[in-house]
């Protein structure tokens, strides 16, 4: 959609002290800039955002970075997932164009919305005159080639709480909120340390999985005494009819 269609909502939510005509942002008309709007069937614009190429202030050399701006949801539509869907559309847009760093200056009131979209805060909160407190937020957006993972392991990219929660599910570990927060910080520190390895040029080096050349070891196919069945089963938490017993596996009633 065209930028001016978003101005009314931008003004109403983000800049009530200005007029809709003042809502144009630098780069609104750049070809790679995209504007997003959520419109219910009546055609009104209830959510907006735009994204364009812009390096973050903390890394002016990152020409591949994307800045999210003008994200607004109509007050009467809040809590209905409008913001999350717009953010999702923005992430898809960035992912479809090679991914990269996505950042924004977020109003502190909206931090949790962005966090649910995989973004995290960076640095201190500052006061934007006549608008309110802001904080920088960012995330890595993957290239479409790996759509399931929310981040790319570039040196400097930090593992997010969302990544950690995903990994905990893969590892079948139920984590408390405290553990999630602690592990996010500690895993990031270890991975930062590993960045020296991740960034090393090893294109000409074959990987070593094992210090020995492993060969299949075969023996004559002769019966040998196995472990004692009763002894093994005696160690299981629950057995029935000589088998290990577990809680229900599929969705049927127990």
């Amino acid at each position: 959609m065209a930028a001016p269609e978003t101005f009314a909502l931008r003004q109403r939510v983000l800049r009530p002290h200005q007029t809709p005509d003042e809502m144009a942002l630098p780069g609104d008309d750049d070809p790679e800039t995209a504007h997003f709007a959520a419109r219910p069937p009546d055609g009104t614009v209830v959510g907006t955002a735009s994204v364009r190429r812009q390096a973050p202030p903390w890394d002016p050399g990152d020409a591949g970075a994307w800045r999210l701006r003008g994200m607004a949801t109509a007050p009467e539509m809040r809590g209905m997932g409008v913001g999350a869907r717009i953010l999702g559309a923005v992430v898809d847009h960035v992912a479809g164009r090679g991914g990269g760093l996505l950042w924004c200056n977020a109003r502190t009131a909206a931090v949790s919305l962005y966090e649910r979209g995989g973004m995290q805060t960076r640095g201190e909160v500052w006061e934007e005159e006549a608008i309110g407190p802001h904080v920088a937020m960012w995330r890595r957006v993957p290239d479409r080639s790996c759509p399931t993972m929310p981040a790319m392991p570039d040196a400097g990219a930090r593992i997010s709480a969302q990544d950690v929660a995903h990994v905990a599910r893969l590892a079948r570990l139920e984590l408390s909120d405290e553990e999630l927060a602690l592990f996010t910080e500690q895993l990031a520190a270890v991975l930062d340390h590993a960045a020296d390895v991740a960034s090393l040029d090893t294109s000409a080096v074959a990987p070593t999985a094992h210090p020995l050349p492993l060969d299949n070891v075969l023996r004559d196919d002769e019966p040998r005494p196995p472990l004692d069945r009763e002894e093994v089963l005696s160690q299981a938490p629950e057995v029935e009819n000589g088998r290990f017993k577990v809680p229900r596996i599929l969705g049927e009633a127990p």
Partner: protein
Amino acid sequence: MSAQQIASAVRSGRRSAADVLDEHLERIEAREPELHAFNLVMSGQARSAAAELDRRVAAGEDPGPLAGVPVALKDNLCTRGVPTTCSSRILEGWRPPYDATVVERVRDAGAVVVGKTNLDEFAMGSSTENSAFGPTRNPHDPSRVPGGSSGGSAAAVAAGFVPLALGSDTGGSIRQPAALCGVVGMKPTYGLVSRYGLVAFASSLDQIGPLAADVADAALLLEAIAGHDPADSTSLPGGAPPVSQALDGGVSGVRVGVLRELTEGIDPDVLKRMREAADALADAGAEVEEVSVPATVYGLSAYYLIAPAEASSNLARYDGVRYGLREPAPDVTTMYSRTRARGFGAEVKRRVMLGTYALSAGYYDAYYGQAQRVRTLIIQDFASAYERVDVLLAPTAPTTAFAVGAKAENPLAMYLSDVCTIPSNLAGHPAMSIPFGTGDDGLPVGVQVLAPALGEEAMFRVAGTLERAAPVPAPAAGP
């Protein structure tokens, strides 16, 4: 009495195994409450085993080279019918249905197993503080850690509870606690000692090895446990290397390289001892030079991707189905997640998470694959170094024993304890730590001898020489 002296006395009938055992059980009784080296002291079984040995000696049999020698086992070595916990809640009360090969071998050699020693949970740690059953203390100063993860085994030897103990070494878990406790600790060439019955942590790195009060006793125990085992598909063909014969061989003409990259980030007093060790070898006739093994600087980072990756896979088996803890839940997936949440401690969870992440889609190449390539670089750089020298010399640990709790909240600081020991695991090479004087704080310092694969004989020659040249060791505090 050393293990050699005990075995010799028991074999000849000069001393009974029962008497030897009682002496050691008394020492355990006196200081174990303070040190917590053991998860389990097996007094009853040990007394039966000692009595049986004494009957055999009386009947004219020779029980073997470890006759009557009390031995402690790290509690990640399976013992049939005897609890094997890995210091983890998830295995509390588990009684394995079989013995580890090394356990059979020490018993076959006449040793008396006296107990299972404390460790960092599943051998993940460098201080023995990550034990579900509480930390082990350093016998030289109980306010300090004994190192880890084989801290219980190292403390048990240092306190005189046993002359010999077995540990496992994945990134330094035998050598680093040996250094911090002032005893000898040795990691054999990968594949030299069977891993059958060692609870797996990182299978391409794990290796069982001896801890002992002196180099000769370490050699004795290595000879008892080494050699091919059909039950371990990574076991090397061939028998044990004759390391006992190498001890007194001297180092005349032996080429020793001081490993340059591992002299960085080391406490000055520790480094000073390592330099003195190099000088002592030169005085004894070795050709000493400084040698660079450049890729070793990446060892720590590569290790803390590879080891957790393998651990996350190995520890998938603790799911509450076949053994150990189970948390009740309405469905099986929730049961897995809750059982593992309750059964694993923080460090194990951290490494399982790190490893799962490093192996997950989109990250595999950047982390795990890259770490495996770095592993190749380390092996190549070692190979170049070993064209010039026979063995390498380095500190074992960057510091002497640190205070209990000092690094407990900072995993990365703890991981740095292993910076000097990790490269040998990644390469599959043998290495050993020999006590060499003390640091400024009066606590033991270990010097590490590294050798190429199956270079154990040269390594023990150098170790024997270093032991004879070492400053008089500090006795472990206490009675």
